[in-house]
Each structure stands twice: as structure tokens, then as C-alpha cells.
């Protein structure tokens, strides 16, 4: 990183910050939904009845949440107020928690 870069404002556009926050939320939601499907079989059945396969419904739920929240956060400029570096850390944290949450759940529960 050169001196010019460091001096400039570290802001992200409303679209970028909105979709980064949406991705962090969707990553955590993805793991929570996987836990719910595994822990409560009737919930898995409900999801299966929606698309014919519970995993397909899970994919659609994740994508709808990611795109929907991304558009909402972009329009309301909600995520733009968050410091960009904090947003990056939040995304890394959400992915790490989501990934470890999945692995540990299926390893021990």
C-alpha cells in the first residue's frame, strides 16, 4: 500500500457495503438453517415439500436472503455507516463461525 492510498477515504459504496453485510448475515443463517434441519426432522419435511428436495429449498432460502438483504441494505444505506474494516472483519468472522459451526455440529451432535 502506498502513501496516497493510505491518505484517501476508506469508504465503500452503498452496494458493496450492503452486500457484504448481507453475505455475513446469510453465512450465519445458512449454518443455523442446517442445524434446524438436522435437529428437527419435521422442519426438513416442510422444506422438502416446498421444492421436492430440502437441500434445494435451503439453497433458495440462502440466495433469496443474500440478494434480498443486499438490495435492502443498499437502498437504506444501512451498512454504509459501518466502518469498512469492521465490515470486513464481520464477514471473516461470520464465515469462520458458519464453517466451524457446520463441521463441529456434524462431527459431534
Amino acid at each position, binding site marked *: 500500500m502506498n502513501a496516497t492510498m493510505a491518505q484517501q477515504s476508506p469508504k*465503500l459504496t452503498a452496494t458493496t457495503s450492503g452486500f457484504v453485510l448481507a*453475505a455475513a448475515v446469510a453465512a450465519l443463517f445458512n449454518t443455523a438453517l442446517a442445524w434446524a434441519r438436522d435437529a428437527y426432522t419435521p422442519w426438513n419435511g416442510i422444506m422438502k415439500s416446498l421444492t421436492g428436495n430440502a437441500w434445494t429449498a435451503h*439453497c433458495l432460502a440462502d440466495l433469496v436472503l443474500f440478494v434480498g438483504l443486499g438490495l435492502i441494505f443498499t437502498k437504506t444505506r444501512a451498512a454504509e455507516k459501518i466502518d*469498512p474494516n469492521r465490515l470486513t472483519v464481520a464477514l471473516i468472522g461470520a464465515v469462520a463461525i458458519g464453517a466451524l459451526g457446520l463441521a463441529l455440529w456434524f462431527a459431534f451432535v
Partner: protein
Amino acid sequence: MNVSASDAVLLAHAGFGVTGCLAALWVFLEALHAEPGNAARIRAAALVTAVSMAAAWICGGYWYVHFYPAEKALILSGPWPFAHNLFMETKEHLFLITGMLAFLLPVTTREKLFSNAAARKLVLSVAALIVVTGLAVEGAGAVIEHGAKVSLLRGAKGDR
């Protein structure tokens, strides 16, 4: 040579996944040296990442829904049931995070990375997360296939 539809779809899934990981690594390396001259290349690589991961998602999803149930039964009856219970269960959900990150990457690379340190850090992080989770998913795929293989081998030897 006898390549079935199941084989072709499964290999396409793994191939697109590896391509997506390599494209994300390309974005990471270009972003380390972000300048106006490579901005278009970074965006192109980010797009390749998203398209490859989407293709891997579609191929993997199709194979999972149509062909995996038989392989799952085989794995669970063999000596490596954890290939499904731990590795497939984790992979089929972890990949969804990788996919969303891949769709996020082209959005983040629209920023001026050469003049915005925070945006550059964000792109480096997203690309690295895609590579790490993508490689974990690829590795899990290898364990799942080996789980099916050892089940077949034990069955063939009659010691199951």
C-alpha cells in the same frame, strides 16, 4: 471408454469448483498489486470466479439430487460412514457460503482498489475466503468418493 451422465456431471462439478478457486486466487494476486492498469483484469477474474462457482453449484446440485442417494446408501453401509455423516453434511452446506462469497466478489471488485485501501483489504479477504472454503469443499469431495470406494472394495472382498 464408458462415461455415464453421472460421471460427467460429477467431474464437471469438481472441475468448475477448481476453476472458481483458481480464479479467486487470481483475483487475490492481482489485488495485492492493484493499480489502474489491472482493474479490468481483476473484474474479469472475479466474474470468472462467480460464473465457475455458479456452474459448480448447478452441476453439484443436480448430481446430489439425482445420483447421490444411491452413493449415500453405499457409504453408510461401508467402513467409512463418516464420509457422509461428517464430510458430505458439512460440504453440502459449506459450499453455499463459498457460492455466496463468489457472487459477492464481482460486487466488491467494482470499487477502485488502487486508491481505496479498505476496499482492497475487503477484496483480498473475500478472495482468500473463497480459496480456503473452496479447497476444504474439494478435499471433502475426495473423502466422500473414497468412502464409496472403500465400501465397494470391502464388498468385493467379501469382508463387509
